């Protein structure tokens, strides 16, 4: 069947089998391998993408469910060679070690601070509770999201002034 949806701002129309999982569609058919397959059982969050701005697990979505909707993957975060604030946060605070969970962590973090620009540490930890990191112990991931929230807040203040 044919499905049409938007991914990282570009409209795509592709032929898929209905049973195709979104994570496989993105990685195999569209060649974007920033979205990872971790547990493949909706536990780990390595496959996180944003669906109409909300983080979801793309291993637990069927491709036809994307019809008419907007998907953002880690490849859609930077624009015009400029890193998104959440990427800068992970860079500056060293919010990763092996990097496998990082695309999902950044997308969840971005959605979190868009919905809640000044999250507490508890709110951040609650927000990333569906994403597993086996390296960092989460300390620097929390700091990275706080860094991005602070950077956004500073930019907004500058914009007002």
């Amino acid at each position, binding site marked *: 069947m044919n499905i049409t949806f938007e991914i990282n701002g570009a409209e795509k129309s592709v032929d898929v089998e209905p049973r195709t999982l979104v994570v496989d569609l993105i990685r195999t058919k569209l060649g974007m391998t920033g979205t990872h397959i971790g547990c493949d059982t909706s536990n780990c969050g390595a496959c996180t993408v944003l669906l109409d701005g909300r983080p979801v697990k793309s291993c637990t979505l069927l491709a036809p469910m994307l019809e008419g909707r907007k998907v953002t993957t880690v490849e859609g975060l930077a624009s015009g060679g400029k890193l998104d604030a959440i990427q800068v946060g992970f860079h500056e605070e060293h919010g990763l070690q092996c990097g496998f969970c990082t695309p999902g962590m950044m997308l969840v973090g971005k959605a979190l601070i868009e919905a809640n620009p000044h999250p507490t540490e508890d709110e951040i930890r609650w927000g990333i*509770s569906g994403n597993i990191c086996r390296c960092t112990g989460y300390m620097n991931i929390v700091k990275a999201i706080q860094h991005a929230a602070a950077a956004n807040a500073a930019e907004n203040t500058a914009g007002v002034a």
Partner: protein
Amino acid sequence: MFPAAFDYVAPGALDEVLGLLHEHGDDAKVLAGGQSLIPLLKLRFAAPVIVIDIGRVDGLEGISRENGHVRIGARTRHRDVESATDLRGTLDVLLDAAPLISDPLIRNMGTVGGSVCHADPAGDWGAVMLAVGAEFVVKSAGGKRVLPAAGFFQGPFTTGLNSDEVMTEIRIPVGGGRSGGTYLKLERKIGDFASVAAAVHVVLGDDGRIAKAGIGLCAVGAQSIKATVAEAALAGQEPSDEVIAAASRLAAEAAEPKADIRGSAEYKRDVARVFVQRGLRTAVNRAQGAAA
């Protein structure tokens, strides 16, 4: 992992869904948020001929108050219950249960009606619906039925829903006094299925006595369990510590836990007792502080 092949349709109108269910019956599965169905498809525990996606049917989402009921559209997402803070004071147990369901990403997709119809004995909504005395509106090409939550859960993944029916809404009666409730859940790690959980909802009369009490137990039997003997023992009583302790022992007797990696049967039964006791105390305290 990927599912066995199936035909896929996403009708724009409920009538089309009902027509397809009438035509395909047991060969069809309804897809809402997919957070229970898709894992089953991937594991090939389910291999339907046709998947009917109800994601494009209007009118199945949202929470509203109508004629003494709170109405929850069957396709309402868990996260939309989580953020329905105006339910505080009326249906505390829903607000306490929602954030404990799986993780934030699953709650963004998964639906209340989907979870109820999936009827996992360790699913959180079943116990909640039993505690609040919910009714389920189900439709087929032949018409509409309203099924009480009590009796709906008949075994693991087995409900009173016929193969040509789809759930469209959940109705929860509210009013009739000051109410309070809560949900207590034991899990091995954040986002886990319950090892044991208890849902409690209490309505107090003008005289301060318990007008109505609802108790649902999760993950301690072949299906979600309504502790009817304990509920009956509470009705008309002063909400004293002794009455609550006695009711919690009766509720634990309604549990039918099995020993597994999460704990022995005796342990789970006692956790159920403790959760019902604590839950009733919290529910009564909240009701006493609530507006009528």
